[in-house]
Structures are given as structure tokens and as C-alpha cells.
């Protein structure tokens, strides 16, 4: 079972690849839109990559609630549990 930090680090890699944000900036308290400047289309790409990488499903109604990196990591942990 991956730890929270391992999931965060993997997610940071994805955010870096998709949106060009430095992986070090992708911390749990950061908001995708307000702090990391990730726009709605990049968010779609990040979610598809997350589904692929973590083998989870993120329905559109759930995707809307993933405001921060922490929200996303928590969702991934719950979905894999």
C-alpha cells in the first residue's frame, strides 16, 4: 500500500508533466487553480492520468470537489482502499 507521501509524489510528477508546475510546489495544502495555476483543461488531463496511474475512477461529479492536492491524494487513498 502506497503511503500518502508516495501518492503525493506521484501526483506531483503528473502535475509537472501535464501543466509544467515544479513538482516541489505540489504540496497537500496547495489549490490546483489558485496556487498552482492549473486550468480546467489541464485538470481534465491530470485526472485522466491519475485514473491511469492509480487504477482508480474519478467520476466528473467527484472531480469537481478536488480543489487541493490534499483533496486529490485523499480521494486516491479512499478509492484504492
Amino acid at each position, binding site marked *: 500500500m502506497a503511503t500518502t507521501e508516495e501518492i503525493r509524489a506521484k501526483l506531483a510528477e503528473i502535475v509537472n508533466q501535464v501543466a509544467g508546475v515544479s513538482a516541489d510546489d505540489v504540496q497537500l495544502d496547495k489549490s490546483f487553480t489558485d496556487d498552482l495555476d492549473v*486550468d*480546467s*483543461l489541464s485538470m*481534465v*488531463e491530470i485526472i*485522466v492520468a491519475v485514473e491511469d496511474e492509480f487504477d482508480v475512477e474519478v467520476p466528473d461529479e467527484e472531480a469537481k470537489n478536488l480543489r487541493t492536492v490534499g483533496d486529490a491524494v485523499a480521494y486516491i487513498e479512499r478509492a484504492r482502499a
Partner: protein
Amino acid sequence: MTGTLQASSGAPYARILGVGGYRPRRVVDNAEICTMIDSTDEWIRTRSGIVERRWAAPDETVAMMAGEAARKAIQRSGVEAGQIDCVIVSTVSHLHQTPAVAPLIAYDVGAASAAAFDISAACAGFCYATAMADAMIRSGAATYVLAIGVERLSDLTDRSDRGTAFIFADGAGAAVIGPSDVPAIGPVVWGSDGEKAPTIYQTQGWDEVVGPHGEAREGEPRFPTLRMAGRDVFKWASYTVAEKAREALQRSGIAPEELDAFIPHQANDRITTAMTRTLGLPDDVVVGRDIVHQGNTSAASIPLAIEALYEEGAVRSGQTALIIGFGAGLVYAGQVVVLP
């Protein structure tokens, strides 16, 4: 009755012989768009890649733009207009339900007796027409086919809609397709997904805005317009359609490292980038990005993008290109072609 019915037989293969485009005269930049919607040049550029687009003037009708593009394609193909025996026009913005615009264009360009008809396959139209032309030439139903994509989407754009006003544009692109001794149009991978029809749609039917005797209905807009669920379309194009593009490439027998160009429908530059990433094409594959200066011209976008790449010197005759169209329906079609 004892006679034996004869069936037609055609050329072994087909190829694109010439491509031409028509770009309307008036350039509309993002600053002008921002006088109609609450947006900024930067927002439009980062969300779509579009810097400017062209909107047709009243005299730049669907038939006029198609005719101009077709004349260029015919001239470059080396075929006489009179040899063309079929004209296929893909458009969603010819505002006459009947007659089709294709016979008028056939007459205009000097292919007066050609079979001629319109198809409705939205942004996939050019690839649909290419697939049909390929099949018709190899079956013997036609020898030289003029395939045209033409749109005046500005007529169907709600200029106050923040989601689409900056995207849609006008133009025409044409290709002459004829017989070949060697394979030059690969197998088409095409299909539809009607379940997703509501993601790109016309706001109303014509009957909802116009009464049975042509009178405008009280309080209704003069025209229906096009709307899009942008995120859903983005996801579908970037992943589902990209997989279809991969299949078209595989079925062509051309390896990714042998491919010279990837020229998808110019829907949104972000979709092009995401598709390219999904496909994992080598970095030296030339990617069509005509949308930057042309906007989304639906069925016209692929031939216009091909023409632009020639003009930039980015591609040359004999190279292979993966083309794929996708859009309202939802519909898609893709194939590998040898560039003329």
C-alpha cells in the same frame, strides 16, 4: 432474363493529387473577440492556442469559398476540371437544406456533369469524404473526386457565448483525389458515438425559431447557434479519438518513427497537444497547428492545415501524414495519407 449483370471495377489504389484552401479576407484578432465576450487575449491563447481567426464577409459565401479552394486544388492536381466525376462537399453551415451546394460548386469549377452531393459529418467531414473518395475510386464508381470541407461557422456562432465565440471560424479546403498505382490512402478508422450527441449541439431546430411560413417566432433568436460542453469534448478528443488515430496508424502499416506529419482537425491547440502526447509520436513528427491563425473551421481545417504546412516548408510531396477529424455527432474518421 439471361444476361449477366456487369459490376464496375476501379483503380487498384487512390491518392490525393492536390490540396487547396480559401481563407476569408477579414482577420479577427482576440482583442476584437474581447469586445463581444468577457475574456482576455491571454485566456483565449492559453485555452485554445488561437491568436486570430478569419470571418467571412457577405460575398464570401459557402459556395464562393469552396469554389476558390477547389480551383486551387484542381490546378495543383494537374487534373482537368472536366475529368472530375464526383464532388463531395462536407458542411454544416450551408444554410439551405436543399438543394445541396455540391452541384453548384461542380458547375462553378467546370465539373458540370459530375455526381455531386453534400455530407454532414461536422469536423470529421474531410476525412469522411476522403474515405468515400478512396472507396469510390477503387470500386470504379468515380475516377477523380473533388472532396471539399467548407464552413461559415460565424453564422452559427453566438458571439456572446464565452465558450465558443473565440473558437469558431470560416474557410474552405479542397482536395482532388484520383487513381494511383501504389497505396497512398490507408485504411479509414471511423465511427460515431451518438450517446454523446448532446456535447456539441445546435441550440434549437430551425422549426423552433422560424414558423411554418417563414415568420420569426416571437422572442426567439433569428438563428440557432452551436454550443459545446468543452471539457467533455476535450476529454473525448484527447483520449478516445487519439486511440482511434493510433489504430489508423497501426492499420496503415506505417511505424510511428516513419510518420512525417500528424494533422488532426484543428479543434483546439490544447486538444492537438494532448492527442500528440497520448499517441506518443516521436518529436520530429511535424504537427499541424494552423488553428493559431485560423481558428476552428470544422470540415475545412485539415486541408487548410495541410496547405499551411506546405507554405511553411514543413512538409513535402510524398511524405506520410496521419489525419483525423472528430466532432459533432459525435463522429470521427482518421487515415494515413501520402501528401500530394
